[in-house]
């Protein structure tokens, strides 16, 4: 089906998508959360009529606008890159994946782009209430757009609600609600948007802390910090809770990703949770033999408890998932490859007999609609591509998965403490005296971005080598183009996005220096 795949093409295509996605994710989370913070501030303005809140709202709106523009610029590329660089994927799953993208456009993008114009330009043209409604609708629109793209992404992690159609050689949607309300989609949406809320709250707190250190805009800064810390604290509690749910769901649907992010090589009951750790240097890559740690801090039984809510629950390790574990009913890598190859060959045979031998054709076709055959063979379709290959190819980069997961979790807990302290000292009006903490608040901004990007690294790199979990390997999804073509566009994107990032940061720093008294720009 797929002939002569050039792995350098796959690597460059992945690099281009990763570059675009990571740049996009630098700008989006701030808009997700800041839009709600702005809406809360404007609500206070409309309720109290106090011009101070109007100025405050307008300042944060300016920061929002700068970010929004570049988020849009990077976002359009992502949508079209599914087609330009992953055209085989676009056909293989377009019947399912395309729908959320279209709904995103119709339902969310129009709402966002319509009301953002009123939000920025309607201050003197529409009533206060209509303006406030527009601000809230902009926030809802931004978050709705996140819903649909995250539903699409969740489906790549946990493909549900579909049926393979051998005639068209693609997966087709059979239940929209299964896709929309799968636990993966629900967790991913809630976890991702709450991470955006936390990041936005930390940005507001960090910038406000800078004003306090500079002894400027004190009232503005303190009030902004109290609103942001309240919003951030509630979001952070939710973030941690939804992260816990997401881990459980990953353990169930993506056991290899789960084992990799916890560096669990040998499956066990009473599996410990590595709360923190550093790997010893190793020249061997993707080796499923156990890695050494320079140090690690373990909590006995906690991993089993996290997944099964019981310390005795069994958690499969990387070696169980490669070698198989009969006792736990886990198939080996080679067995999955055998079964996947049978599914792929059945499709090939079906295509050979199409229009030639109707009886045979119907026999092959029937298999794809026989649930038992689907559960035993088609389920491992993607493994068929790995038959005879090194099993290390189905293990994601373990250090990357492990560190990205732990950085995200550790920083999440750190942010919770920051929010509690900001709120406590903010209410007691003691923030001005805590210079060290104001600096901590400022440095929390880059940490928020690191945590946020780490989440996506874990999600996407941890899923490798699959683009659709167990169904389609990433290398089989790529467009049939030259590597040099992708190299050129990769560097063009890198150049353009970096230039725009520099411009964005310079503009943002300038606006912060100008401050809210400038009345926006």
């Amino acid at each position, binding site marked *: 089906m797929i002939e002569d795949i050039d792995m350098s093409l796959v690597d460059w295509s992945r690099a281009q998508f990763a570059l675009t996605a990571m740049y996009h994710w630098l700008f989006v989370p701030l808009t997700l959360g800041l839009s709600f913070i702005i809406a809360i501030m404007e609500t206070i303005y409309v309720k109290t009529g106090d011009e101070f809140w109007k100025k405050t709202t307008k300042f944060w709106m300016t920061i929002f*606008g700068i970010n929004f523009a570049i988020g849009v*610029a990077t976002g359009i590329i992502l949508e079209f890159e599914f087609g330009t660089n992953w055209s085989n994927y676009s*056909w293989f799953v377009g019947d399912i994946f395309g729908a959320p993208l*279209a709904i995103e456009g*119709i*339902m969310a993008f129009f709402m966002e782009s319509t009301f953002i114009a009123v939000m920025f330009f309607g201050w003197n043209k529409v009533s206060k209430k209509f303006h406030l409604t527009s601000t809230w609708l902009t926030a809802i629109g931004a978050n709705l757009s996140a819903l649909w793209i995250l539903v699409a992404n969740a489906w790549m992690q946990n493909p549900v609600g579909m049926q393979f159609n051998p005639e068209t*050689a693609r997966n087709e949607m059979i239940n929209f609600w299964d896709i929309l309300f799968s636990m993966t989609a629900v967790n991913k949406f809630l976890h991702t948007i709450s991470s955006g809320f936390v990041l936005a709250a930390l940005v507001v707190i960090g910038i406000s802390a800078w004003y306090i250190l500079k002894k400027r805009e004190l009232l503005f800064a303190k009030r902004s910090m109290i609103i942001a810390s309240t919003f951030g604290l509630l979001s952070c509690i939710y973030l941690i809770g939804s992260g816990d749910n997401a881990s459980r769901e990953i353990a169930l649907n993506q056991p290899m990703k789960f084992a990799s992010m916890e560096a669990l090589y040998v499956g066990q009951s009473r599996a410990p949770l590595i709360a923190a750790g550093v790997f010893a240097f190793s020249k061997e890559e993707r080796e499923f033999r156990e890695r050494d740690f320079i140090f690690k801090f373990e909590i006995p039984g906690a991993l089993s408890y996290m997944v099964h809510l019981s310390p005795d629950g069994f958690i499969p390790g990387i070696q169980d998932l490669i070698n198989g574990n009969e006792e736990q009913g886990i198939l080996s890598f080679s067995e999955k490859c055998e079964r996947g190859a049978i599914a792929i060959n059945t499709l090939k045979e079906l295509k050979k007999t199409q229009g030639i031998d109707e009886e045979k054709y119907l026999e092959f076709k029937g298999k794809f609609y026989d649930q038992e055959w689907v559960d035993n063979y088609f389920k491992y379709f993607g493994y068929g591509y790995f038959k005879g290959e090194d099993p290390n190819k189905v293990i994601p980069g373990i250090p990357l998965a492990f560190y990205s997961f732990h950085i995200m979790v550790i920083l999440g807990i750190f942010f919770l403490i920051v929010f509690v302290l900001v709120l406590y000292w903010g209410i007691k009006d003691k923030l001005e005296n805590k210079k060290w903490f104001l600096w901590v608040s400022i440095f929390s901004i880059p940490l928020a971005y690191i945590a946020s990007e780490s989440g996506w690294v874990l999600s996407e790199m941890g899923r490798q080598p699959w683009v659709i979990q167990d169904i389609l390997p990433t290398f089989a999804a790529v467009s049939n183009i030259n590597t040099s073509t992708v190299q050129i566009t990769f560097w063009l994107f890198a150049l353009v996005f970096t230039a725009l990032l520099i411009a964005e940061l310079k503009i943002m720093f300038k606006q912060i220096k100008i401050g809210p008294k400038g009345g926006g*720009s």
Partner: protein
Amino acid sequence: MLVSISHLFLQHYWWGIISLLASLLVFLLFVQGGQTLIYTLGKSDTERTMIVNSLGRKWEFTFTTLVTFGGALFASFPLFYATSFGGAYWVWMAILFCFIIQAVAYEFRSKPNNFLGKRTYEIFLFINGAFGTFLLGTVVATFFTGSQFSVNEYNLSRWETPYRGLEAVLNIQNLALGFSVFFLARVLGLLYIMNSIEDANILERSKKHLLYNAIPFLVLFLFFVIRLLFVEGFAIDPETKEVFMEPNKYLHNFLQMPLNTIIFLVGVILVLWGIGSTILKGTTKGIWYSGSGTILTIFSMFILVGFNNTSFYPSTFDLQSSLTIENASSSFYTLKAMLIVSFLVPFVVVYIWYAWKSISKIKITEAEMEKETHSY
């Protein structure tokens, strides 16, 4: 009701939605057209700021429509998405680059410390306006003239030229439509600026340039349409589903779909009316006639190329690889689910209209630019 509809009906319905989105997109390209005229119409910094701000309040509609157009194509005709985007890589990438630089240009243009300088962002707007419109028009023309690709039995596609879509500019028919869209966008941009800015100098210059742009638009568009009536088209045998070349296929489509032909003619007349009434009577409402005319004309052209057993994305390399609304579409279930979603479209149109009217009821003036706290 939903139970009794057929897959074929849904394929036609979704091609209708795609046609509608395409027509709205071309109308909204007035933003791009206007961007190519910033220095032509604006002789002072204030005049240019007024023009940029009048266009800047609408740029997101064009952008969102383009994104939604892409998303709707992916959802309803994924084989087109896979074949065209993955194949005509350079053309689509060029279009995307044009739109990336537009998105930031408005927001960053007048901000202090903006790194690249005001003029650079204005050049970004010009590039977006000139190349974005031309390339989109050229790509759409390939729906009529064909491209060189093949699709195998697993529906995996391969582009059969190393130029990755850039070869489209070597076809005179494609060029004619590409430049038509470019000049149409400029005509619409001029009409929009005349309608939204209250400034005697800008109005006067716009009127003059309207004529300069309307003439090449009409010449090129008429060339494209008249030639289209006489060329062979990509027809589908409704029984065997085989694609074959049919002489005067698009003329036959005009004759066999009279309602669509009426829509086309009304659209063309409205476009001409908008231009004519502005030049001859001095009205500033020409955008509403030419704009609605553009929507009707483009809609009917998309129907022309997709309906009546016509291949909407033909392959000149292998006729049987040509894409049709039947072989390129999503499954019955997906199209049905999307049908329900499409019921939201009128609601979306109503709130866009309401919001648009609310912020556009007062024309942009020099005085407003001076006191506006958020300007581009």
